[in-house]
């Protein structure tokens, strides 16, 4: 049995690492170099089928789809990382305070997160974008708001669990400062749980970002993003099916990579 588990764990981790690695590397590379320009148009090469010249073919403006998918992956990963960074920071800060101290603040924060949770996430993001307007910062901000409550809840429940642990009680008796207890004594102990939720959060953020761009309220053209490419491509399903396939499969690739990777890490921890 143990040998079997080890083998399996490696498989998850390797597959996840390879998939995530290629996506992230290609995405980062796209900010410096792509085989073709991501925006340059060419009237003579509209709707070219995949070939060695254009790996994934070209779109309705004759732009190279492979280059645009590369750039789109980079954009998606970058935005998702920032969203998770933002919401996880908010989660740690508010979750620690409410979980450790409780009281009125806890009650208020919990009611607000209840309300946000009761709201379908895409709808909330839609409303926030309507208020703030489109744009990258606003996209990150709105998704950050959407994702924060789940982090607050996770961190809060961990703090609630640990606040009466023996070693914390002892630290309190010894007169250790509150800030120190919160972020030096307790924080490191919740990290294992926290990392798993960060990985899941990354996945959800990528799905949410591409969903928003698909609906036309995320990344704006002519900038490439996997979601807005898909929505453009939908009109050409009959003439150029590869146009929809490329960005769609790229999303699947990234999300699958992340989930295999986090599954691998989870099993490593067991």
């Amino acid at each position, binding site marked *: 049995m143990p040998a079997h588990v080890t083998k399996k764990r490696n498989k998850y981790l390797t597959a996840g690492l390879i998939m995530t690695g290629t996506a992230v590397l290609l995405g980062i590379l796209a900010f410096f170099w792509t085989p073709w320009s991501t*925006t340059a*148009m060419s*009237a003579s090469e509209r709707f070219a089928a995949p070939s060695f010249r254009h790996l994934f073919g070209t779109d309705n*403006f004759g732009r190279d789809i492979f280059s645009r998918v590369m750039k789109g992956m980079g954009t998606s990963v970058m935005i998702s990382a920032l969203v998770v960074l933002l919401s996880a920071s908010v989660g740690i800060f508010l979750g620690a305070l409410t979980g450790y101290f409780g009281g009125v603040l806890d009650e208020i924060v919990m009611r607000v997160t209840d309300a946000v949770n009761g709201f379908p996430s895409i709808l909330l993001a839609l409303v926030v974008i*309507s208020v703030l*307007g489109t744009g990258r910062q606003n996209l990150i901000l709105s998704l950050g708001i959407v994702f924060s409550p789940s982090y607050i809840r996770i961190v809060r429940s961990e703090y609630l669990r640990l606040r009466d642990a023996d070693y914390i009680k002892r630290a309190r008796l010894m007169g250790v400062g509150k800030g120190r207890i919160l972020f030096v004594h307790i924080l490191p102990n919740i990290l294992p749980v926290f990392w798993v939720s960060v990985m899941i959060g990354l996945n959800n953020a990528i799905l949410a970002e591409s969903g928003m761009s698909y609906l036309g309220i995320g990344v*704006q053209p002519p900038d490439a993003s996997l979601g807005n490419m898909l929505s453009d491509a939908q*009109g050409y399903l*009959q*003439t150029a099916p590869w146009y929809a396939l490329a960005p769609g499969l790229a999303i699947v690739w990234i999300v699958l990579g992340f989930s295999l990777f986090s599954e691998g890490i989870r099993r490593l921890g067991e």
Partner: protein
Amino acid sequence: MKKKLCSLLLAALLAMAVLSGCTDGTGESSENNFSAVVGIQQDIDSLDPHLATAAGTKEILFNIFEGLVKSDENGNLIDAVAESHTVSQDGLVYTFTLRDNVKFHNGNAVTAEDVKYSLERVSGLLDGTPLVSALSTIKSVDILDEKTVQVTVESPNTELIYSFTAAIIPSGSGEEEGTSPVGTGPFSFVSYTPQEGIVLKKNPDYWQEGLPYLDQVTFRIVGSAETALMELQSGAIDIYPYLTDSQAQTLKEGNTHQVVASPSNVVQALFLNNAVAPLDNVLVRQAILYAIDKEEINEYVGGGTGSLIGSAMLPSLADNYVDLNSVYGTKANVEKAKELLAEAGYADGFDLVIDIPSNYEFHMQTGEVIVEQLKAVGINASINPVEWDTWLSDIYNGRNYTATISGITCDQTPGYLLNRFQTQSSKNFINYSNAEYDEVYLKAQAEQDMEKKAGYYKQLQQILADDAATAFLQVPGNMTAISNRLEGYKFYPIYVQDMSTVSVKK
């Protein structure tokens, strides 16, 4: 326990089924052969012909309502509810004689009383609220006898007659009746479902002998521009007037529909706010016009079906149109554009945000091409999509923008497109100001001789082009798909879907 669980789940599902199934009706009869379905893109804003403002609504209401006069497929006015009309020498008195055989859909004959009521309603004489702004010039509507109505206006305007296309409705119906729209058109109203569409049926009493041919016409809102193609192929819709270039290509291969390109009545432009730096500098505006490649835009976005324009006039208004494409050329002139930018002090270019109403795929795609073209001369442009609503309030009315891509829909009057560029015009959303222009426009308006008037209009177009007031791009082509089982569809130079002449092929 498992059983309990299952039954609970089942109960929940059943509850959902009951909740949603209660409105399930018996269903309408299946399609008959003498009906047609027209795909439309937007929902209807009002069924009241005097309150409807969206072009997408007016094109449908054209089938239900008629004015004293109406447009024909050549853009000329023909008498409709009126049998004939005369205008006095001084242009102040209009006399309309009504037809004998015009009936409303409710079976009542149209009387002078109905005409008076309708005109007073649209002109604001009824309650102080003019519904058609051009007709607010009406001073009085008098019934001379039961078939003759005389309209007196405050000032002469040779283009006013076009506004008498305003619908004639039964006297008093605006306030009381209101259960369903009643007009005199070839089709009468059956039902309307928000977000799905509107159903019309044949008006058997229509005054034009033999028309219409179809028993029923449905205007159905398509799922999206993307699925429209598949709806056409499956026969879910028969006529669709807004094909994109690639959809047209696909459809032509199938041989099930004819695809016809016809010029629209929309002037598409990259509108430049003349009051905002750096676009307040004529050199910068000229540079932008040189940088834009109109041929490329037409090719990418319209499949080459548009007509390129250099100023604010539809080429179809041939008497008044002057071709000004040569002023800045139809292809990009990067050298000249860079030169002008350097002269204006922007040798390194500048940032430009272009606001575009995001519901218009056509304008959005045009924006993508223009951003790329401006990049070549060093202008760093970006697209900011705005909702149609925001566009109207912030950009069109608020004038709070730098540049925007949109289209102006022009009714038949040539003055309509030029009127808005007067300094004081409330519709002058590009903040254009040129004393000479204002002066010539006033002269044109006062002129009664049509030929001289056209001369002034041409002069106005030239001034706009010289000042690079705005980057006029093209009059996009409309690509309409018509099912092979239908015939007789007529193309209008204005935005209407006339279904009265459409019939099923024998």
